[in-house]
């Protein structure tokens, strides 16, 4: 019988703990396929965050570090400076990257660290049970914003891709999502490009992936996909915000 599909060898056989309908699994798969496609799996070192992806070190079939909350870019900086010929990536959520670890990500980008960051933005704190994230939309209800995020109290959500794209050290910054096959294909291209640019040594690269959290959004998986497309994307537009390989042409 012909094999038409196989799980990427860059993923272990560990059973993932993600909730049904959560798109973390798709994003893991895209990163894993990229490491195989670019033939860098054996020289890859990943850094897992604190958040829903905290167990990512069990899922990626390469050397991994588990970092303290928000510190993944600093840990990745340490690794990359010791092993400059290795492929180093961080996989971080919105609390990790856009709240507690804002300084680390901004400065990693400023230094132009040759690492790739996969930033999973689902507009909520998943692991701790649905609290407000810096990316929570105005009006969106969470367990710590039970009446909806108030602009007067918390301001508007932070757009990390746009913010980091203003930094000279950033070589490639794109926001994608994985809600449709077309989006998934595009996300795969973005992730692949980010890793390629890292290996060319051009600077810091980040792909922000808008992701669903049906559990904490209180929706079915299908509803969550629609909500993301209809509500999140207008607040977090999908685009390439920085690509220094384009400018050079």
């Amino acid at each position, binding site marked *: 019988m012909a094999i038409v599909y196989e799980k990427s060898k860059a993923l272990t056989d560990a059973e993932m703990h993600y909730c049904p309908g959560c798109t973390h699994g798709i994003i893991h798969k895209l990163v894993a396929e990229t490491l195989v496609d670019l033939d860098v799996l054996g020289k890859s070192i990943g850094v897992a965050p604190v958040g829903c992806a905290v167990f990512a*070190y*069990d899922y990626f079939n390469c050397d*991994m*570090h588990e970092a303290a909350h928000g510190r993944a870019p*600093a840990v990745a*900086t*340490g*690794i990359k400076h010791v092993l400059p010929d290795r492929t180093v990536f961080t996989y971080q959520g919105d609390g990790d990257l856009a709240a507690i670890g804002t300084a680390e990500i901004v400065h990693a980008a400023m230094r132009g660290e040759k690492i790739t960051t996969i930033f999973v933005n689902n507009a909520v704190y998943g692991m701790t049970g649905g609290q407000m994230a810096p990316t929570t939309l105005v009006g969106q209800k969470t367990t710590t914003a039970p009446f909806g995020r108030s602009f007067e109290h918390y301001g508007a959500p932070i757009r990390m891709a746009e913010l980091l794209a203003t930094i000279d050290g950033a070589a490639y910054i794109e926001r994608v999502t994985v809600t449709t096959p077309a989006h998934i294909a595009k996300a795969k291209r973005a992730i692949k490009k980010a890793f390629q640019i890292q290996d060319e040594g051009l600077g810091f690269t980040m792909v922000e992936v808008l992701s669903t959290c049906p559990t904490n959004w209180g929706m079915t998986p299908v509803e969550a996909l629609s909500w993301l497309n209809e509500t999140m994307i207008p607040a977090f537009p999908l685009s390439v915000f920085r690509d220094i390989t384009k400018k050079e042409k």
Partner: protein
Amino acid sequence: MAKELWKGNEAVAEAAIRAGCRCYFGYPITPQSEIPEYMALHMADTGGVFLQSESEIAAINMVYGASGAGARVMTSSSSPGISLKQEGISYMCGAELPAVIVNVMRGGPGLGTIQPAQGDYFQATRGGGNGDYRLIVLAPATIQEVVDLMQEAFDLADQYRIPVMMLLDGMIGQMMEPVEWTHTPASDLPGKTWATTGTEGKRPPNIINSLFIDPDACNRHNQHLEEKYKKIIENEIKYSINDLVDAEILFVAYGTPSRLARAAARLLGEEGIKAGVFRPISVWPYPYDALREAASQDSVQAVVTVEMSTGQMVDDVRIGVNGVKPVSFIGQAGGVIPSPREVADAAKKALGR
């Protein structure tokens, strides 16, 4: 080999480079900024890495990454900065990562002062971060000892897969003394087979991690660490004793105050009172048994602890002496240094004279 005059902070940095440290991450803070400055200037000659981080928090996490990747790595700071590093230190102990962390202590709490102090003893020896963990903490008293212990600190870190803290005070960081550079041959250390250097498809992935979500697994991990700490207690206690013969007073002090205590002992000697000085060099593991033995000597009538704090190590002195002799304390904090005269007077008071 000829002696050279070295400033404490610069000697720390040079000794680290000579000990094979090839990675430094840190953030400037007085009174230890000569360490990153020296590293910035000289690390490049070795092909090593110097990086000034955006914060102490980032620095210690860069150390975490570099250590996990197999490098001999260090960071340094002074008291408020060391507070910021505690998270990373706890994680490194949990993940069993070697590194050397230098604390050139200044007065606190909070911003305190930039003058020398020893108010971080509890933080260093009890663990300023979360969880059941220990660090090896070494406290030199001369620049020569700084240099000698730096080499040892890196070796101990690698041997036990543990962060080692060099606990200095601002005075040791700033003063100059002659140093004789002796070459210590590299110890027979285990290879870093656990390091994340890329699998190259030839081995299962290495994972650097302090997360053990299952309580039984986390308990087992803690027991494993505890076994390691017991081995360190068995093998790595360091201390020195001066002038114990016929001593009526036993001073206990580490770092700069140990020198003040010796000056006080000299003053007492002029008055016909014999005083010895017990100096812990490793403040964790603490030389409890050796201290008790010294204090138990018949001639000793009182144990006097001298610190540049309001009294922290004195707790360990009481644990060590365990009631065999009375223990008292003399100290000043916030950058004020107790004078040998004050220390001698405290000893006389302890003797009831």
